[in-house]
């Protein structure tokens, strides 16, 4: 029983990294309709930017912020200069998926060319653990959890209580209707990419902190867990993604203890398939609508 609770602690940390990533991924997807396979690679790139920041003397938490900003900027630029032009040329949904896959390969291997195939790690000072029953957290893990909570609350506040958030939701719901009500869909698209880049960038560094190393394949491997969390919650459902992140994060760590590490991703996958068979649109599908995608 104790080991189960101990790994619950790890699960909460993993979920805390998954949460901003899954929310960013799903928010951008619902607002823009582009399935961004390059998301994981963008996370990796941001994690390496944070590495550079720590090398030139910034503290690790400054590096998280800077990497988040870098992620936001690069994601918005990528949208403006690559994805939107492709959309304007009439590339369809599946074509756009192939474009983002190409970008994923491009970014991932660019990282390998720039920083080499060997992993790097952030300079972290070890600190005493903080105990909560059988769970124990290091200081950096607590900060990771804290950042995640801040992201969750901020996303909720933004979408629920601000004009901009309402506009993003309107665009996600019905782009044409939103535009005819005077919302600039292009601007909301830019903002959605900005937000997803910010959350992805920060999550990338948090992942690097948690794994205590950063490698060029890191984000790409993590993308599967992000997608699993997003699908579980119902694609495009921000609160669903939060719940999905929590479920997948805890499940990954619990099954690593119960079944052994090699089976951890498989159990997440089995849960995903099971959920899809029972509820093909995810657990939070109440408000989900079929978007015109083909």
């Amino acid at each position: 029983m104790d080991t189960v609770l101990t790994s619950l602690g790890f699960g909460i940390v993993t979920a805390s990294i998954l949460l901003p990533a899954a929310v960013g991924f799903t928010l951008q997807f619902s607002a823009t309709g582009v399935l961004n396979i390059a998301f994981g690679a963008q996370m990796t790139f941001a994690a390496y930017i944070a590495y550079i920041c720590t090398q030139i003397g910034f503290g690790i938490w400054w590096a998280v912020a800077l990497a988040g900003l870098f992620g936001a900027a690069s994601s918005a630029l990528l949208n403006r200069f690559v994805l939107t032009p492709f959309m304007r040329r009439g590339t369809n949904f599946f074509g756009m998926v192939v474009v983002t896959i190409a970008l994923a390969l491009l970014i991932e291997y660019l990282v390998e060319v720039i920083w080499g195939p060997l992993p790097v790690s952030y300079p972290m000072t070890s600190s005493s653990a903080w105990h909560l029953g059988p769970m124990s957290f290091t200081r950096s893990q607590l900060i990771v959890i804290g950042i995640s909570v801040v992201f969750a609350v901020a996303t909720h506040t933004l979408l629920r209580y601000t004009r901009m958030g309402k506009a993003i939701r309107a665009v996600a719901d019905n782009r044409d209707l939103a535009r005819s009500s005077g919302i600039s869909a292009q601007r909301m698209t830019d903002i959605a990419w900005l937000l997803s880049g910010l959350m992805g960038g920060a999550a990338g560094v948090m992942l690097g902190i948690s794994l205590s190393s950063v490698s060029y394949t890191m984000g790409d491997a993590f993308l599967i867990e992000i997608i699993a969390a997003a699908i579980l919650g119902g694609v495009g459902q921000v609160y669903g993604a939060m719940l999905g992140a929590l479920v997948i994060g805890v499940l990954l760590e619990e099954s690593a203890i119960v079944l052994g590490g090699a089976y951890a991703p498989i159990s997440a996958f089995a849960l995903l398939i099971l959920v899809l068979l029972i509820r093909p649109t995810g657990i939070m599908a109440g408000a989900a609508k079929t978007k015109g995608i083909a």
Partner: protein
Amino acid sequence: MAYYVLTLCVYVVVATIACWGLNLQFGETGVLNFAYIIFVAAGAYTASILTLGHPTSSGYQQYFWGAHLPWPLPWLAAGVVGGLLGLVVGALVLRRLRGDYQAMVLLVVAIMGAYMVSAAPGFLNGGIGLSDIPSPFRSMLHTSQVGYEVFYLGLSLVAALIIFEVMRRINASPLGRVLRAVRENEAAAEAVGHNVATTKLLVMVVGGAAAAIAGAIEVQFISAWAPASWTYTETFGLFAAVIVGGRGNLLGVTVGAVLVQGLFLEGTVLFPSIGNPELIGAVQWISLALLILIFLWFRPQGVIPERRRRFGNLARGSRA
């Protein structure tokens, strides 16, 4: 040199067969099967265990079951397994899920396939993979290495010709028109009475079988197969070939497979190495990604575009 060129030729034939299957799914029907490489892997594993013989407990590799079957049974069995896998994956993914979910779940399936094989060492020898897989008629033919490679190239070309004919007939038949109708407009195809889900399931089965046969041909040639040989990124190499060549056009796809898979991915070994040899793989993938982007931007229809079909007075354009 002759040895190297022959090896390259076999690789290209294998890639071409795989690309035809992918073209049937992606080019003709519009099914974005990101898990395509696991069908190639399923065929390769099937052919491996059907030629390796029964596993012995003292053997250096562990797998769950095996047999010694003569050629061409391992290749045919691979096709059957690929088709069945297509049925299972298709029934799981295609029938109930929306298009965007399908693409994502298939990507997850591809990665999980490799995880599962690696996690269970007793199933197909885990992450180390199977090796020493026999080649057909190897002991019977007393030829040199190059002579045998010529023979094997011939065998694979026979398989390729049969699969080409199957694909060509599907393309030209009324069924081919249904596939293109599903690709162009699912709702309209449904409305005129075609069963979209069954059609997609059918191309999953046929395309999966082609992929598996490609895998079987490859594995009996290179005689080893491990999860590292079928990472999900390999699927994108095949997608690149189909896009560059011209989706929906069999000849175009063939050209694409030769260009991308032959010259681009395998043929780079022929050219003098530039810079750090460790980075060749990375540079290859970067150029492949750029190639896909350039083609999707400047020539989304590919080198040899799908031909416009004319039916009497009605000219129906092929919108790519």
